[in-house]
C-alpha cells in the first residue's frame, strides 16, 4: 500500500447526527434475567465479564425475572413509582419556572429518574452521597422537602444556601447529600476520602460517588479509582452513562475501552453494568454494591446505562447535535412506563390509578411551588440579603472582609 507508513488521526463519531435515522442496533442488550447474581464476596477476577453485560430485571412483558429480582415489596415498588413521577413533575414545573424567568438555570433528569430514586433506597441512614447535578432523586426519595429544593432553585429568602449557589446545587448533610460543586468529577475522589474516613474510624457508614459518562474522562475519576482500590474503601462508585455529555457523545470519554464499567477492571474493582431505566435492577445492583462496601469487601463500580432524554440544561438545545427522535429509539425505554407496566401486571396498579396519581402529584408540586414563591423568586419578592454574601466564607470573618462589608454598606 502506498500510504502504509502514513499515520491517521482518529476521532470517534456517533452513529448518527441530526437528519439521520437513530440507530442503536450496535448497543447489545442482554435479556432480562440472564446475568447471574454472584455472592458479594466473589473474587473480582471471576466476574470481569459483568463489566460488559447489562443486568436487567424487567423484561419486555413487564415481568421481573432472574436472580436480581424479588428484593422489593409491592408497597416499595409503588413508592418508587411515586418518587420517579414526583421527580419528573418537579422537573417539568421547575423547567417551566426557568422559562418564565423565575430562576436563571435548570437541569432535569428526564429518562434517568430510576437511577437516583432507586439507588437512595439501597442506602442506610448516615451514608453519604457525593452527587452530581442530575441526582435529585436522592433527595426526593429520602423525603427531603420539595419546598426547600425550590427555595434553593429560586435563590429566595428561604434558600438554605442563602442565594450563594447556582440553582439545583443542593446540599443536605442530614439527607446524606453532599454539597454539589459545579466543577465536574472533583467530588468523586472526595467520596472515596469520606469512605476511607469511615473505615479509619471503624464506623459502619458507606459513601456513594457519582459521575456522568463524560466526566469519567477527568483525572479525578482515575484518582478515585486508585484510592478506592488501594485502600479498599467502603464506597459505591457510580457512573451514570446517559450517552451524552452536553453535545459530546459517550464515545469521546469512553474511547476504546468498550464500556465505562470496564474502567474498573484494571484497578481490580468489581465492575457491573446495569439497565439504568429499570428501577428494580438499579435497586438490586445498588444493594449488592452497598452490602459489599458495608461488609469490608471494598469498592464496586456500577455503570448505569440510560439516556438523557431532555436537553443538557436550560441553556442547551440538543437538536443541534443529535436526531430529535433519538430518545424514542432508545432501546431501554422509559423508567416510569416500565415500572408502571410492571405494577399493572402485578395487579396492584392501573392506568386510572396512574392518571389519578399524576394529578395528585401535580397538585402537590404546584402547592409546594406556591409556597416557595411566597418566599420570592430570583428576580422578585424576598431575597437573601447582601450581608449573606460576605458571611459563611470563614468560620470567623477576617478583618478585610469586615471592611469590605462595611464599604458595601450592608
Amino acid at each position, binding site marked *: 500500500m502506498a500510504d502504509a507508513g502514513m499515520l491517521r*488521526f482518529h*476521532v470517534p*463519531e456517533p452513529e448518527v*447526527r441530526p437528519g439521520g435515522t437513530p440507530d442503536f442496533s450496535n448497543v447489545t442488550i442482554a435479556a432480562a434475567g440472564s446475568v447471574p447474581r454472584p455472592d458479594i464476596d466473589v473474587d473480582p477476577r471471576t466476574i470481569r465479564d459483568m463489566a460488559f453485560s447489562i443486568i436487567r430485571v424487567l423484561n419486555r412483558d413487564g415481568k421481573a425475572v432472574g436472580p436480581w429480582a424479588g428484593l422489593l415489596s409491592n408497597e416499595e415498588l409503588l413508592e418508587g413509582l411515586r418518587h420517579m413521577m414526583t421527580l419528573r413533575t418537579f422537573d417539568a414545573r421547575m423547567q417551566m419556572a426557568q422559562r418564565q424567568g423565575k430562576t*436563571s*438555570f435548570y437541569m432535569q433528569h428526564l429518562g434517568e429518574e430510576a437511577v437516583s430514586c432507586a439507588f437512595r433506597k439501597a442506602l442506610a441512614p448516615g451514608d453519604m452521597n457525593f452527587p452530581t447535578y442530575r441526582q435529585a432523586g436522592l433527595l426526593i426519595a429520602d423525603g427531603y422537602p420539595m419546598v426547600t429544593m425550590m427555595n434553593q432553585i429560586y*435563590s429566595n429568602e428561604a*434558600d438554605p444556601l*442563602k*442565594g*450563594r*449557589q*447556582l*440553582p439545583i*446545587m443542593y446540599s443536605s448533610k442530614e439527607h446524606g447529600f453532599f454539597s454539589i*460543586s*459545579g*466543577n*465536574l*468529577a472533583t467530588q468523586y475522589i472526595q467520596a472515596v476520602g469520606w469512605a476511607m474516613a469511615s473505615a479509619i474510624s471503624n464506623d459502619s457508614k458507606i459513601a456513594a460517588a457519582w459521575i456522568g459518562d*463524560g*466526566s469519567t*474522562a*477527568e*483525572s*479525578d475519576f482515575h484518582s478515585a479509582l486508585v484510592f478506592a482500590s488501594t485502600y479498599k474503601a467502603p464506597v459505591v462508585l457510580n457512573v451514570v452513562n446517559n450517552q451524552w*455529555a*452536553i*453535545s*459530546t457523545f459517550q464515545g*469521546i*470519554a469512553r*474511547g476504546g475501552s468498550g464500556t465505562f464499567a470496564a474502567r474498573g477492571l484494571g484497578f481490580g474493582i468489581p465492575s457491573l453494568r446495569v439497565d439504568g431505566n429499570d428501577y428494580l435492577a438499579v435497586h438490586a445492583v445498588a444493594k449488592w454494591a452497598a452490602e459489599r462496601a458495608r461488609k469490608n469487601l471494598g469498592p464496586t463500580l456500577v455503570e448505569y446505562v440510560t439516556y438523557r432524554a431532555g436537553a443538557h440544561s436550560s*441553556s*442547551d438545545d440538543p437538536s*443541534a*447535535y443529535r436526531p430529535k427522535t433519538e430518545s424514542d429509539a432508545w432501546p431501554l425505554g422509559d423508567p416510569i412506563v416500565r415500572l408502571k407496566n410492571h405494577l399493572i401486571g402485578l395487579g396492584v396498579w392501573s392506568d386510572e390509578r396512574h392518571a389519578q396519581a399524576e394529578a395528585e402529584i401535580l397538585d402537590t408540586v404546584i402547592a409546594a411551588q406556591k409556597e416557595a414563591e411566597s418566599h420570592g423568586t*430570583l428576580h422578585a419578592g424576598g*431575597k*437573601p440579603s*447582601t450581608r*449573606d*454574601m*460576605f458571611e459563611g*466564607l470563614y468560620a470567623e470573618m477576617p478583618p*478585610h*472582609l469586615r471592611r*469590605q462589608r462595611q464599604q*458595601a454598606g*450592608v
Partner: protein
Amino acid sequence: MPRRTMIEAIRDAMDVSMERDERVVVFGEDVGFFGGVFRCTQGLQAKYGKSRCFDAPINESGIVGSAIGMAAYGLKPCVEIQFADYMYPAYDQLTQEAARLRYRSNGDFTCPIVVRMPTGGGIFGGQTHSQSPEALFTHVSGLKTVVPSNPHDAKGLLIAAIEDPDPVIFLEPKRLYNGPFDGHHDRPVTPWSKHELGEVADGHYTVPLGKAVIRRAGSALTVLAYGTMVYVAQAAAEETGIDAEIIDLRTLLPLDLDAIVASVKKTGRCVIVHEATLTSGFGAELSALVQETCFYHLEAPVARVAGWDTPYPHAQEWDYFPGPARVGRALIETMEA
C-alpha cells in the same frame, strides 16, 4: 465594514488562522461538531475536518497537556477551556509545563499554544461560571495574558496570540460576547451590530500583544481597566461627569506600562477597576507599578475597585459586580482626595 459579535470575531480569527497556517488546530469540550457551548468554533470542523477541529474528552489537564505535546511537535494548538472556572485541573500543565518549556530546554522546545476561556460574571452563572482568574496567570513567569474588550480587538489579538511563539492565555469576557455591557443590568444591551467597535475587517489583521489603547481621552484622572470593566468605567465617567481618561489594557502581560505612565503623569490620579477579587488581584500589581513610576506626580492615593473577596454569588450577582455606582464613587473620592 462588516459588523460581528465578539463570538463571530473570535471564530473568524480562528478561521483566518486555520486557513493561513495548517499547523493551527482547534479543540476542546464540545468544540467540534457542535462548535462550542458559546458557538465560538461553529463551522470550523465542517470546513477544516476532524483532524484540525475536534471534541476533547472532559479533561482540562488533558486538553492543555496534549496541546503542549502538539506544540512540541510543531503544531499550533488553539484550545478552549469551556469556562475559565474549569481551568484549574489544567493549572499544573500551564504553570509548570507550558510556561517553562522554552526556558528549561533553552529553546530546544517551545510552546506556541493559545488557551481560550470565557471569563467574568454578569450572566447569573454562580460560583463556577463567573470567575476572573487573570491574576493566577499573570503571576506565572512564562505566560502571556490577554483580555479583549470588543470584537475588533478580539479578532486581532487572537490572531496575534496564535502567531505568538509563546503560550498565551486568552480570556474572553463572556458578558461582552453579544454586546458591550456597562453594568446597568436592568437596561437593554446594545448589540455589537450597533456599535462601532463591532466593525471587524475581513481577512487577516493583528492587534499587537502588549499595547494598550485609550478608550476615552480625559485630563482629570486615569482609569485602568480591561474587558467588561472598560464599559463600566465609561458609564461611571459619563454619570459622574468626571473627565476620566480610560485606558483599556487589552494585554495584562506583557503590559503597556508606557501608556499607563504617560496618562497618570498627565492626570495625577489613578483608579484601577477589575471584576476579579481584590486581594492579590491584578490591580495590586498595577497599583504598585503606578506608585513606583508616578509617585511624584500623584495627587491622590491610587484607588482600586474590584469584586469583593468572596466566591461569586448567584442571587447577589449585582451586589457583587463592581458596577457603575461603585466605580463612580471611587472616581469622585479620588477627585476629592
